[in-house]
């Protein structure tokens, strides 16, 4: 009879896309790792796929406003973030888990997430509650008081996810979040992703095609810094044939798209 109305449906939006890149170019060292990428992402969970060196991490860093684009246009939540823009307002709405992230080994999990909440300029009164909720959501409640240096790889990853979601970001960027998680934790994580994707724009970079098919509403495939394909997981599955490499229909679809793209680029 009644259904839950998500925050996303009632909030006034002044921008058509949460993430909008046009002809985006980003350098990694001297090399242009993202080279003329066009991408538009709205609410939902988007899985970012691509071979090693495709520019996934560099793209993530540019979207996280950590590195400055070398060219093109990039808009986050309706605000331009290329050039000399004031990034403060946009950054309050961002969550970012880098592929490798450092931390202060003597901090406890709670102190780490609190520090990040403070850096994200959250209202002081909201911090303790938000920190507890983020730690609960990643399943680290029992470890909240443990020092970061005592955590296993999977727990560290989850602490990293907790700091990324602590401010309820409108744009959440997770670079290889499932590395180090055991199968059961990965299932929990997929559940969390679906939950987060209800009213924010989540971009998850991964090398696991299966994760994308199960947990994402949208697949983004890039190669050599350019967009190769954007579509639904169901559509990705139909792209592969019997002759393509891969153990599942989705993996075969992934290989087929890449092969076709390389053939076209080679011509």
């Amino acid at each position: 009879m009644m259904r839950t109305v998500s925050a996303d449906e009632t909030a006034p939006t002044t921008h058509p896309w949460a993430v909008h890149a046009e002809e985006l170019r980003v350098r990694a060292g001297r090399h242009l790792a993202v080279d003329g990428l066009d991408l538009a992402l709205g609410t939902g969970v988007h899985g970012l796929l691509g071979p090693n060196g495709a520019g996934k991490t560099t793209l993530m860093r540019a979207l996280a406003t950590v590195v400055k684009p070398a060219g093109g246009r990039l808009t986050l939540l309706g605000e331009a973030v290329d050039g000399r823009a004031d990034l403060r307002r946009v950054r309050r709405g961002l969550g970012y888990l880098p592929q490798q992230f450092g931390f202060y080994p003597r901090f406890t999990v709670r102190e780490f997430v609190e520090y990040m909440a403070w850096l994200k300029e959250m209202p002081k009164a909201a911090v303790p509650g938000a920190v507890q909720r983020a730690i609960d959501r990643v399943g680290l409640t029992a470890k909240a008081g443990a020092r970061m240096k005592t955590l296993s790889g999977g727990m560290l990853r989850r602490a990293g996810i907790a700091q990324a979601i602590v401010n309820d970001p409108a744009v959440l960027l997770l670079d290889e979040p499932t590395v180090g998680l055991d199968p059961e934790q990965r299932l929990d994580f997929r559940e969390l992703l679906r939950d987060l994707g209800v009213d924010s724009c989540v971009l998850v970079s991964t090398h696991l095609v299966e994760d994308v098919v199960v947990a994402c509403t949208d697949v983004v495939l890039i190669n050599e810094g350019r967009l190769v394909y954007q579509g639904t997981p169901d559509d990705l599955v139909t792209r592969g044939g019997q002759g393509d490499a891969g153990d599942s229909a989705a993996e075969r679809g992934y290989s087929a798209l890449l092969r076709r793209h390389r053939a076209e680029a080679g011509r």
Partner: protein
Amino acid sequence: MTTHPNPTVITRYADPAADLDEVTVWAVEVHLEGCADCRALVAGSTADDTRALLARVAAGIDDGITTGPAPERRRSWSATPQRWLVWHLVPWLTMTVGVLACAVLLQALTPGLPSLVSLLAPVAPLPGVAIAWSRRHDPAWELIAGTPAAGLTMLLRRTAAVLAVVVPALALASDRAGISLALTLLPCLAFTAATIALGAFVGVRRAALGLGTAWALAVIMPAVVTAELPVVLRAGSSPGWALLTLTLAGFALLRADNFRRLSSHN
């Protein structure tokens, strides 16, 4: 909130089997939010199994509260980030203070040489500032660089932490060595501002390294060789240092946006 819904409507609202149209349900719901009497009526007309369920839920919650973890003690968590910085800076600041103490001692032993405290004052804060703002030394750099707090304000806060140690040490050293306080503190502040201003372009660490080396080669070495205090550190030069500090600080403020990103040269 004066017209209460008809009690039969409330009974039908509470009964999951009764068929009540959506408009009436909404109206009752809105009224219930503000009327305790009618809420009591709803509670009274719920079926026994519903009441049993609610009692079970309440017992479960009570049980969870008593057996679950104790509420986290409220701490002054804003002290946490500073704790890391303080521990990290301790060895470098100890070294700075040690070098200044040696300078005081040497100056007492060799009265013929120009004041070593004056010569070292400009570069005294540089190692600390370089360490406080360096991605090699801050493990969480990439995480921090993506937050709204990252930027010149944070650099200034960390610089202030360094100066909080270096300035009193310099004041004490210049007092012991019997030289003008203005001629040690103003060059110290000018070089700090210069490091930040130059750091906007080449990174704070490189700026500190470059300025320190330049000062050593252009001023300290000739002064030691000629045994004469350079003109820039003699009495009367303090207005110049003050002006330089203000200019460089203003310039650094204009370049504030250069500190917002993780740039490769930090």
